[in-house]
């Protein structure tokens, strides 16, 4: 987990951080896609075997979403394709950002999204009924809260992980 929580004092690749509206724009797209996954998942019967389950439309769309979360979590939010769309098409039409954000919080949110959606996808492929719909619904709520309410998931989860002892200092002197 420590790889997901980089030191904020380390200079980010962009010196002044990112436009916080970029990740919220991406979360809006993700929320809409996840809602489509839930809709498809509710109306489709569960595939009979692994191949059928992998190829049903809801699973295909969720696979794309999982891949996009992995991109954001491992390459960093600044390299996410939604960020490129935002910078090319949206940001030039908006006023310059009044504040800039460190890329670590939205990158952490991508990792959380990846864990939730990948778990749902794996359980779905294993044939667990409802796993895809439940995971997509949970991820939808997180993406919706991010997009609409600018809800800071990392502000809540980090303390819980520390208090549960999941996150620990590897070097106490650090």
């Amino acid at each position, binding site marked *: 987990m420590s790889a997901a*929580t980089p030191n904020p004092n380390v200079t980010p690749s962009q010196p002044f951080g990112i436009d916080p509206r970029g990740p919220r724009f991406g979360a809006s797209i993700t929320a809409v896609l996840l*809602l489509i996954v839930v809709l498809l998942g509710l109306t489709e019967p569960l595939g009979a075997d692994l191949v059928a389950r992998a190829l049903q439309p809801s699973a295909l769309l969720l696979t794309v979403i999982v891949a996009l979360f992995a991109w954001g979590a491992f390459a960093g939010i600044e390299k996410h394709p939604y960020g490129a769309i935002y910078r090319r098409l949206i940001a030039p039409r908006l006023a310059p950002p009044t*504040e800039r954000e460190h890329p670590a919080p939205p990158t952490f949110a991508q990792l959380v999204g990846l864990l939730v959606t990948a778990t749902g996808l794996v359980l779905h492929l294993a044939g667990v009924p409802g796993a895809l719909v439940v995971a997509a619904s949970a991820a939808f*709520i997180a993406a919706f809260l991010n997009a609409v309410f600018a809800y800071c998931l990392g502000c809540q989860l980090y303390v819980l992980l520390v*208090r549960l002892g999941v996150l620990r200092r590897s070097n106490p002197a650090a």
Partner: protein
Amino acid sequence: MFRIFLSMDALTALIVIVALVALATVLGLTLRARGTRVASGCGGDEHQLSVEGAEVTLVQLSSPVCSACVAMRRVGSELAAADPTVAHREIDVLDEPDVARRHSVYSTPTTLVLDRDGHVRSRLIGAVKPADVRAAVDAARTREAVAA
């Protein structure tokens, strides 16, 4: 049983979708309503965290993955820069997990307001408005009301 849950007709599925959006909206409004607040009369001592010579020390517990912490850092450091009797320091909750446990800190940023004796006089949860931070600081300057 899961045949009912899954492969439902399109209308029922749409109703579930609308309910999901409504649930997320209610959740968002609830979280926003209790997102920032000031908890007073907290008690407890954190001498080791108070800055010597300062009348009031703001100890901000932060995490590296928290965007609201940056906003709170700005408020705290500006207050400390404008008023030499106020000190602001920020620590990673990972460095002080026991402090988080002692003061029931469940989210970052949470800022402990310490008086000159190192007593915790209030807790600021979230990125609190500058005026509310000032009010909490001024309250911590006054002698603690001691019963008997």
